């Protein structure tokens, strides 16, 4: 057994030492060292499934304003003055770890255009599936259902979902997908998921941070205590960025006694935006939507 509380194989004592003084951490680590079973000591306080993996089953949600902007930013007015403070956009701390996003010049120009026109262009405004990692920090909960072979992530927003295929690294994505193709494995107590085979249309946030279909996301889920997952996503997309970068944020367990996944089947809330101009006798302010993966201009010229 290692005597060093900061040893890499000791995530529990590492995390514990984060919030307390050095002395207390040392005492705690001593107490852990004195436990009769090594396995118990290593598990810390996290629950485990019957096959010994960290048990992440349950309802999770990111807290804060990451969905507005994954980079740091001040609060600002919203797109519609009639909403007043209700429609204003909160400040963001930023979750990107390695400085400003390393866009190529062209990709940066695209991001800026997206930001200028985000209310019309943001794909989630049309109730499209948010993609990964955005689905994990939308302001809606998602449920993890974990089995040895598959882990399901069911998202409240847009009924989006992913099946994580465990220990099948050679199972290539059958088709490009809005939520990508997820292959998972355990590295110690961390669930590592490689997500590939993306559609190019999803964004990372409301300000239009974006990617191409070359996107590859390496996610890491580490259960720090029964109610907290440390989440990390490494973003690789050589078409859009000059180097890989990483975002990091906590996912919190929903603690309400009656917490459960509800429905946000938002298609019905986006139909007037998308199709309203095609209705019979549509009001003049209904115009063709922009930022669509496809569209039909109306009137069709004959």
């Amino acid at each position, binding site marked *: 057994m290692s005597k060093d509380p900061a040893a890499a194989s000791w995530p529990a004592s590492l995390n514990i030492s984060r919030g307390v003084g050095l002395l207390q951490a040392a005492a705690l680590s001593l107490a852990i060292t004195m436990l009769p079973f090594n396995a118990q000591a290593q598990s810390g306080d996290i629950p485990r499934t019957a096959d010994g993996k960290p048990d992440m*089953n349950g309802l999770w949600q990111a807290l804060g304003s990451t969905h507005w902007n994954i980079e740091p930013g001040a609060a600002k007015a919203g797109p519609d003055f009639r909403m007043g403070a209700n429609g204003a956009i909160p400040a963001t701390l930023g979750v990107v770890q390695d400085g400003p996003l390393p866009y190529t010049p062209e990709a940066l120009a695209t991001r800026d255009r997206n930001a200028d026109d985000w209310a019309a262009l943001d794909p989630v405004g049309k109730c*499209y599936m948010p993609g990964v990692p955005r689905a994990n920090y939308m302001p809606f909960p998602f449920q993890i259902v974990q089995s040895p072979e598959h882990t399901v992530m069911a998202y409240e927003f847009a009924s989006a979902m992913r099946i994580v295929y465990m220990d099948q690294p050679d199972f290539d994505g059958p088709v490009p997908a809005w939520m990508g193709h997820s292959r998972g494995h355990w590295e110690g107590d961390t669930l590592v998921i490689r997500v590939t085979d993306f559609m190019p249309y999803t964004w990372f946030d409301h300000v239009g941070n974006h990617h191409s279909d070359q996107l590859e996301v390496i996610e890491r889920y580490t259960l720090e205590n029964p109610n907290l997952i440390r989440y990390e996503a490494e973003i690789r997309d050589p078409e859009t960025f000059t180097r890989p970068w990483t975002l990091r944020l906590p996912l919190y367990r929903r603690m309400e006694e*009656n917490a*459960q*996944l509800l*429905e946000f089947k938002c298609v019905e809330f986006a139909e007037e935006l998308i199709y309203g101009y095609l209705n019979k006798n549509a009001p003049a302010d209904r115009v063709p939507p922009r930022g669509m993966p496809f569209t039909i201009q109306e009137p069709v010229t004959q």
Partner: protein
Amino acid sequence: MKTSFHKPALLALLCTGSFYATAQDSDDWQVPRTINGHPDLQGVWANNSSTPLERPEVFGDRPELTAEEFADLRAQAAEIEASGGDALFGDGFLNAVITGEVQSYDPATGNYDAAWMVDRNLENRTSLVVDPPNGRIPPMTEEGRARMQERAANRPGATDSYLGRPLQERCITWGMPYIMAGYNSYYQIVQSEDTVAIIQEMIHDVRIVPINDKPHADERIELWHGDSRGWWDGDTLVVQTRNFSDQSQFRGAGANRLFTERYTRTAEDVLEYQFTVEDPSTWERPWTAVINYTASEDPIYEYACHEGNYALMGILSGARAAERNTQSN
């Protein structure tokens, strides 16, 4: 899982009878268990039964075909397959075999051809409905008929608005339960200790079924797919679902309907799915159907319905163009 456009072969004539024979022959087959000791219902399951929901009247009270009739059915099915005509979904298949007439899903456009059909699972049953004994959905109550008429009257014209299109075409839902066999009629079940996830390939819906004693959600939370609670009854997963939205639809039922589903693994490659629906405001009595899901080796695909719904735009755009043509002529 989506029907392959490259694969011309459509109707591999599976016979569920043989599944049962296999199961009965090997006395040592037992329901597999999860790591938590629960019956293991996990896997990808296909609803490709060729049996119609309601029994065609020609069969009377008989729940099963005779051996001769079944052989005849298989022969005729092969003939329909070879003809390469329109796709036959849900009840269309057996009805076509019985009547010898193929009814197109959409005669206006003929938009679905046989390439959309996956392997049919031919069974010797005459209806999925097992109760009432006549294999038919009970008569509707007066209230139920009135509700259906009111809904129809309130619906905009079919091409006046997106609201005039069915919920499926709008990519909102194919309903709960989705029982039509056809394309994308696949499910995947994943189990944890206290939760069962039932993934429905059609529109990437996931039903989360908590296996615990917690009460149902507040009745003011009305949901497209209802609010489910489950428990184990021996080797059977029982799921009760209520709290339906008034907009959600199931064969004319009302928002107060109650579903009781029973999932039982009856063989390595068969999951028996039984549901009972109770809704005194719609039907004179509850009714029950049984569908045999068959194991599938392929994965669930992402069915990004709404994200690619150019068809709905095309339908409305075409209608507006037709109106302009009428006005200008």
